């Protein structure tokens, strides 16, 4: 028998080796794994064929079996069409009270759950080409979806690469309190348990678009956006772009403030002082603010030239726009049918000249038009951190100072501030 101390060192090394290897996989390993799985499946098939041949199955029965198998594999409604592939670690398929460890790959069907232990990962390869990566410490149940596949995330994280779905069918992920539907999308759903027992669903979209529903409300999440859903409450959307995110906040706050004061909400503005007397501006526009030409093109003429212009939907999806001096143009083909003339858009303009007046190279003046007592508009100014304010009216409703930036937001009665003609 080995001395106790030897056993301890080996055990300790084993534990550290396992923990070090439990992180992310690399492509080389995945490739070798796939080859090994294919080899094993091939060998199993050959063994089955040998058995069938030796037992002398009547040809008609064999043909019927092949036909039945083909039907099962090709019929998208088949319950056993999806496969679970072990990536590494220990992964179980739970079916009611029983569970089965996955050796390399196993078929999975409606009603079963996939459970990954710590440092373990598995992949569900769906019949339609979609892939679901089941991350460590996750429980994912395959449920019966009449309009497509539905997976219930009971614990942990799942990354989805959804194939384009057939018409009328969707791939959906359900969590306690939220439902996420998709079409040809790459996204991740994470269920976070809070210390107080509540659960939050977080959805991060890499490409495509998903719909997140919770508390009876729905939001669309475009690429590079994140959605959060608390059980029983409306979903929240965050854009990966902090400026757009701030514009969303201003739009929301502007509407709220206008309602409180019994006034109309104007389009909020965000002005950032840039170098050489120029300003970056973000504001909201509607497609109806653009002029539509006969060739289907939409155009907008700015009051002052900008070096760069970008346009986004409130879902964070960029609408391709061409800019030349003061003129902006959107191709009719770039405007999706989902974009109505009333849809609000966020316009980002860089290096705009003439909006803020710069005196002696360092004093910035902004005079707002006045006279619209029934419209309330939020104006946010982003100034260098060391800036000092000579005079501002009305009093700011928000002031935020960091060493590099001073941000002041005012709520003013403004009309005629539009940056376009």
């Amino acid at each position, binding site marked *: 028998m*080995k001395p106790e101390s*030897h*056993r301890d*060192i*080996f*055990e*300790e*090394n*084993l*534990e*550290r*080796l*396992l*923990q*070090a*290897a*439990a*992180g992310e*996989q*690399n492509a*080389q*390993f995945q490739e*070798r*794994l796939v080859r*090994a799985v294919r080899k094993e499946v091939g060998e199993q098939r050959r063994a089955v064929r040998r058995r069938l041949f030796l037992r002398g199955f009547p040809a008609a029965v064999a043909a019927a079996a092949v036909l039945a198998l083909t039907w099962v594999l090709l019929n998208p409604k088949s319950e056993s069409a999806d496969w679970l592939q*072990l990536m*590494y*670690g*220990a992964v*179980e398929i739970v079916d009611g009270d029983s569970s089965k*460890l*996955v*050796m*390399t790959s196993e078929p999975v069907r409606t009603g079963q759950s996939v459970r990954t*232990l*710590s*440092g*373990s990962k598995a992949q569900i390869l769906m019949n339609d080409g979609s892939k679901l990566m089941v991350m460590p410490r996750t429980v994912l149940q395959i449920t019966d979806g009449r309009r497509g596949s539905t997976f219930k995330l009971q614990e942990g994280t799942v990354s989805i690469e959804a194939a384009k779905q057939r018409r009328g069918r969707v791939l959906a992920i359900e969590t306690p309190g939220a439902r996420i539907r998709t079409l040809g999308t790459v996204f991740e759903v994470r269920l976070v348990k809070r210390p107080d027992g509540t659960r939050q669903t977080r959805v991060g979209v890499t490409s495509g678009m998903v719909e997140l529903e919770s508390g009876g409300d729905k939001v669309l999440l475009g690429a590079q956006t994140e959605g959060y859903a608390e059980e029983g409450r409306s979903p929240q959307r965050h854009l990966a772009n902090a400026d757009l995110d701030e514009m969303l906040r201003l739009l929301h706050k502007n509407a709220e403030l206008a309602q409180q004061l019994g006034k109309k909400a104007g389009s909020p503005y965000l002005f950032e002082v840039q170098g050489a007397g120029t300003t970056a501006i973000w504001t909201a526009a509607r497609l109806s603010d653009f002029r539509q030409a006969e060739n289907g093109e939409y155009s907008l003429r700015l009051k002052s030239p900008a070096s760069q212009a970008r346009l986004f939907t409130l879902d964070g999806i960029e609408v391709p726009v061409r800019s030349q001096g003061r003129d902006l143009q959107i191709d009719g083909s770039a405007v999706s049918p989902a974009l109505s003339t009333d849809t609000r858009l966020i316009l980002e303009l860089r290096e705009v000249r003439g909006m803020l007046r710069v005196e002696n190279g360092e004093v910035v003046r902004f005079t707002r038009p006045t006279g619209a007592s029934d419209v309330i508009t939020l104006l946010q100014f982003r100034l260098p951190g060391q800036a000092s304010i000579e005079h501002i009216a009305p009093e700011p409703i928000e002031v935020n100072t960091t060493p590099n930036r001073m941000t002041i937001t005012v709520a003013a009665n403004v009309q005629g501030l539009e940056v376009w003609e």
Partner: protein
Amino acid sequence: MEKLDDAPLPEEILARQETQLLVQEAMMELPSRHREALVLKYLENRRVSEIAGRLGQSEKAIESLLTRARQAFRQAFLKLLHTEKSE
């Protein structure tokens, strides 16, 4: 690295991608029962009594399963290490 029970492995070796790859492959070569026992014990840090409850076996049976699993891992790991070196 072949002397797994002589001294603690240096962090530098643990951090290497080749080491992690070998561990993952060695785990894949193990019978699923061994793999599950090792994951529960060393990654999930479960007590033997918990593993026994989960796998529906006595604690003694789990101790012996873990011993066999550790040995199987050692063999699989060293075999892969030698294959890697001779390639």
